[in-house]
């Protein structure tokens, strides 16, 4: 029986602030899971720490709420040990790009077949609004004692530079578009990254819902226009079509340049997609031919309560 959207919801009380962008992201994830028809018990949500960390409790699949900055480490371990699982990791921008930046880069190099979604709001909400790595230099959100003294991380640029093979950006108030991006990300064979712009109504008084909607921007015809626009509507082609250095470098630089757009025009959509780089399980299969058919989680390790592993050849080589 096909699962409905409601099947992916838990009855755990959601204590996010009213108007929080996180709601849109959780809805989009649930919608994507329902639409893809994934099996709940073959799916696991990993989450980091902070408001976004609670996400795994709201989604009715396996859910693992991990540690600050470390979500990718747990998630990759689970996926490598049991490649049958659909693995989605989520976390905040401070979690993934501050304390967890090292894991972010290393995960890109591995290209494990899973999805990572960053809830990107420019602040550390749960600790009362300190500057996060995506807040711009000189900006002062409302609980900062003085303007931000650090330059911002560019999540899209960092992802493509690190080797992520699917890189996209969504907006939490465009839930349908976000849901479509999530589906593409999950279906991608390799590590996919989604940077989701998400207003924090309590602590980020700069990048607000109104700001993204462009209520302060009026064109000559006195018409408001949103800051957000969709790459796919402008004919942007993010796909690496063939395995050549020239093609890859071109698509990579194009995405990097695009990712620098900010201010009055903010692109969302797919920035980069490269299927020519082998996912991690293929690299493992090169060494361990039956890795996928007999993964670590599937292996039978005992017979009648005793070891069934035959190490006699190794012992023979050590015997004198």
């Amino acid at each position, binding site marked *: 029986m096909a699962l409905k959207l409601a099947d992916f919801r838990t009855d755990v009380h959601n204590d996010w602030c009213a108007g929080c962008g996180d709601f849109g992201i959780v809805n989009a994830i649930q919608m994507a899971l329902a639409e893809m028809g994934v099996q709940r018990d073959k799916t696991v949500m990993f989450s980091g720490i902070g408001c976004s960390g609670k996400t795994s409790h709201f989604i009715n699949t396996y859910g693992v709420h991990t540690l600050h900055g470390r979500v990718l480490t747990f998630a990759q*371990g689970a996926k*490598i040990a049991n490649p049958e699982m659909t693995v989605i990791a989520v976390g905040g921008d401070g979690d993934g790009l501050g304390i967890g930046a090292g894991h972010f880069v290393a995960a890109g190099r591995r290209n494990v077949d899973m999805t990572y979604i960053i809830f990107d709001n420019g602040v550390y909400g749960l600790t009362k609004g300190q500057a996060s790595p995506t807040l711009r230099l000189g900006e002062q959100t409302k609980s900062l004692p003085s303007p931000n003294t650090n330059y911002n991380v560019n999540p899209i640029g960092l992802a493509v530079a690190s080797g992520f093979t699917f890189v996209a950006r969504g907006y939490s108030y465009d839930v349908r578009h976000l849901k479509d991006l999530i589906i593409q990300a999950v279906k991608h064979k390799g590590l996919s990254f989604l940077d989701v712009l998400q207003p924090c109504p309590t602590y980020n008084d700069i990048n607000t819902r109104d700001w993204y909607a462009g209520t302060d921007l009026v064109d000559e015809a006195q018409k408001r226009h949103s800051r957000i626009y969709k790459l796919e509507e402008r004919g942007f082609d993010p796909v690496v079509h063939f395995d050549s250095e020239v093609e890859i470098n071109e698509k990579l630089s194009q995405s990097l340049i695009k990712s620098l757009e900010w201010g009055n025009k903010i692109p969302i959509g797919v920035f980069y997609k490269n299927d020519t780089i082998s996912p991690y399980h293929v690299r493992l299969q090169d060494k361990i031919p039956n890795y996928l058919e007999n993964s670590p989680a599937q292996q039978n390790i005992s017979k009648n309560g005793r070891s069934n592993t035959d190490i006699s*050849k190794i*012992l023979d080589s050590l015997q004198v």
Partner: protein
Amino acid sequence: MSSVDFTWLIGGPQGSGVESGANIFSRVCAEMGYQVFGKREFYSNIKGEHSYFTLRISDQKIHSTVNDVNLMVSFDAETIFRHFDEVISGGGIIYDSDLEKIKTDDVNTLDDPFKNRLHKDLESKNKPFTIAGILEIAKEKGVLLFPVSFKSILASLAEETENPRLKGLVRMYNVIGVSLSLGLLKMSPDFLHKTIDIIFSKKPAIAEINQQAANYSYNYATAKFESFNYLLPGTEKEPGTLLVQGHMGTALGKMACGCRFQPYYPITPASDESVYLETNELLEIIDDRPGSTVVIQTEDEICSMGMAIGGALTGTRSATCTSGPGFALMTEMLGWAGINEVPIVITNYQRSGPSTGLPTRHGQDDLLFSVFAGHGDFPKIVYASGDIEESFYDTGNCFNYADIFQVPVIHMMDKFLASSVITCKRFDTQKISIDRGKLLEKVSDGYRRFEFTDDGISPRSRLGIDNGIFWNTGDESDETGHISEDPIMRVKMMDKRMSRLDLILKKIPDSEQVVSFGIEDYTIISWGSAKGPIIDALKMLKKEGISIGYIQLKLLHPFPTDYVNFLLKDAKTIIDIEANYSAQLGKLFKQNIARDIDYYVLKYTGRVMTSTEIYDSLKKIIQNKANKREVLMHGA
């Protein structure tokens, strides 16, 4: 027939082949039926600094090295400067005669503290600061000198084999040194050739020139060297003897007990284990398709631990292997594994701390750190192996404990064990039992991961099984695994988890918790790798009619208070022996047992304990001449 107890030492700059020379010598001895115990000492350096290998050889089972060296072979000056005084009267030094004029100042790897001590010694004996001066002292002491020009050996060899390339091949010095030793000791040349073939089996061309060099040098020694006090003719070989290196015990244990996932980050002295696992990643499984161990080199130890936990959540037996600095990084995650009741094994090959400390040197430095690792209260097991053979079987037990009690297990190993080479009985895989505890294969509706049960352990689902959905969180949670800050729930959950410590003490058999080697008026308490030197020292004392008791604590957390108390009830004087500054086991003991420790024998030079040192200090204790705290200093 008098029993054989002979120690051979080879030294040279790191990267010059000391290790492969040592491997050849160890293997020949083992092939000839001897029991061996070897230890490697080396700097944190790739090439050039001094490294050496000591091999003790006996026809009896041995568990340690001793202070005395019977034969030293050196192909560089530094080895002579650093080790000449370890060679006993009647022993010998085979050395490169071209080095005699070398001054201490010519050897730029001799560090000042050592050089100053050496100069003082030479000055007091009125000798020049040269190899010749050093050798004079040795000679006066009664050490036999066997000078050989390594250069001329190569030259003659090149001529004899019509292979001019050999002339400058200083990389052959190690094989020459080893073969000269074997010739002097009249050991079997057949085993020498067999061993060279085995060790260089993948490089036949190199094997061939090594054979030539070995042959020439062996014959040179038998023809030119005067007779020596020691001969090693060989003895009856015990069937089923292995020659193993330290890291192999836990690695083979992991293969045998079904550990199928090991993420790790490189660190000395732990990484050899992971590399060995990966080298043997494809596994043969009885009556089943091939298995494998997935070994992943991660970006740091935090990721290793995170991945291992992720792997464990899928029901895979998962582990990581590290040393002190890496374990320090893992401690936040250790607490996560604790609160989420995740069975994982952390193999902790300790070294000298604090910080990077002595990165390639020994120390049992991290007992207290491991027992108290992590913030907050959560149950864990800290378990220590005493030798390499034990570590194979203990590895299996550690995974069973992790699964049965659903706790992280820290398996304590150390640099002493990692860098030892020993002969031991072939490991018996059939002795490895596998108990996955309450791990579920099928789950019925209404499953709750942290359900309250009579014994405090909940049935464990795994990622990916039908109806088995669970939630984990590092926050306190309710039975389903969702966050709960309810005070009553908090107490129930904390009590549930912590009750496991009592259960662990109740369920793990006494013999796996503490091994008693007998209780006497004087009884030693110790843990980990101090076992070998202690056992050998006790044997030496026994020969003199002195009996000293010894208990080896293997389970260190939770502390087996009642059992240790019971064992020690007839002991009058307690001696704590361990390789760290602060007597960490002693502290743990006193925290748990209302009883004083009478003597401490400690070592924190970074070098391993010898049985001679333990023997000497025990003797002092019995003669009432010891300080409460005896600090051991032997070793270069």
